[in-house]
């Protein structure tokens, strides 16, 4: 403790740094804040619970509706399945009947076509026969004229005084030509008949 020692007490007016001033919280304000916060939370929770309750009730109703619909649809499906089975039986029967009907239609159509073929062929034969008949009539006439001419020629030859030799020769030539035509016509007819 000499005279050079520094003093132990620092004067109060020699303050090197200031001390921060911290406001003192009131306990009442803190409680108020907590209360309000809690009230908000409780209200929010109540709202949330109400919302979830409502949603739950709606889902429950929806579920009930779906179950009821399922039972109804199940009943309808069972009824429809029974109806389908019945219709399938009818369908099988009708398919068989349709197949039989189609077969009959094709068979009848074929028979008709064959008859039409026969009729057309018969018509062709009638046409051909008519043509051959006309040809035969022509041949018959030509042969008759040939025979008649030859009869006449025989008569002229039996009475040579009525005609000159030249006249008889000319007549014989014309009869021969007539008979030649008749023979050719008969040959054509024979060929036509053999075709």
């Amino acid at each position: 403790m000499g005279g050079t020692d520094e003093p132990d007490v620092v004067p109060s007016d020699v303050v090197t740094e200031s001390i921060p001033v911290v406001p003192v919280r009131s306990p009442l304000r803190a409680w108020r804040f907590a209360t309000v916060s809690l009230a908000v939370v409780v209200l929010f929770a109540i709202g949330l619970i109400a919302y979830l309750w409502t949603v739950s009730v709606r889902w429950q109703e929806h579920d009930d509706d779906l179950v009821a619909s399922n039972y109804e649809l199940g009943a309808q499906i069972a009824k429809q399945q029974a109806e389908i089975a019945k219709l399938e039986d009818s369908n099988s029967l009708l398919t068989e009947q349709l197949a039989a009907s189609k077969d009959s239609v094709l068979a009848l159509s074929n028979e008709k076509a064959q008859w039409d073929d026969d009729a057309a062929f018969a018509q062709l034969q009638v046409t051909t026969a008519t043509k051959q008949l006309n040809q035969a009539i022509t041949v018959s006439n030509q042969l008759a004229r040939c025979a008649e001419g030859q009869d006449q020629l025989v008569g002229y030859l039996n009475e040579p005084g009525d005609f000159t030799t030249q006249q008889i020769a000319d007549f014989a030539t014309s009869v021969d030509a007539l008979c030649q035509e008749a023979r050719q016509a008969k040959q054509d007819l024979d060929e036509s008949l053999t075709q």
Partner: protein
Amino acid sequence: MKARALASLAVASMVLAGCGILPASPQPAPSTYLPEPSPSEGDTPGALSPDGFTAAQRMTVRVRNIGCGFLSTGSGFALDAHTLVTNRHVVENAATVEVSTYDGRIIQAKAASTTTVADIAIVSTEQSLGAAFAVRAAADPVRGDVITVVGYPNGGRLTTASGVVLGASADPLGGAVGPVLASSVSIAPGSSGSPAFNEKGEVVGVIYAKNFSNQSFLVPISTLNTLLTEKSLLVPATDSCTT
């Protein structure tokens, strides 16, 4: 104060975020659970005929050639209500051409056009051939494709036969300009002019010949399409009885 504001903001954010995960109320139930009826195959045009016959059967016709002193039969198919396709040799030397449908109707042919390019004839009629007509394929079938031939073999019943395309070939009769198609379908005299269908029901060729190996030959659809486009290739057929 700042801390309290931040806390309030955080709480508000959490509340808002929490609202997002809350379950929603159910949607209103539909008035009916029954589905709308879908169109059946019978409702589509051409799927089913009113009498149970297929379109291929209904469009295929029997062709009767009444010539001067002879009668022959073949097959053909309707292109439209008054036009049908058959082979040239089916209507050759005809005085009269008659057409029979699958249900027995007899229709008189009005005129016929033929071509030297292929064994094809186009015949027109006064009366309607029916309501089923050929849908021509855009391209020829290739080797291995399944085809179905509908026709009147031996002038008898309407018959269906199937086989596969064996590939392109030169015309065994030597008359066609382009290549023809060989197939394994078994045919008989009277099948000439029958349509050959692919699996989609489109006409892909016209039967016109067979060989001793029981292979059949088709005029390819590309040739028919060309002939129908180039009308100048078709010339009217003449009545043999007048020549």
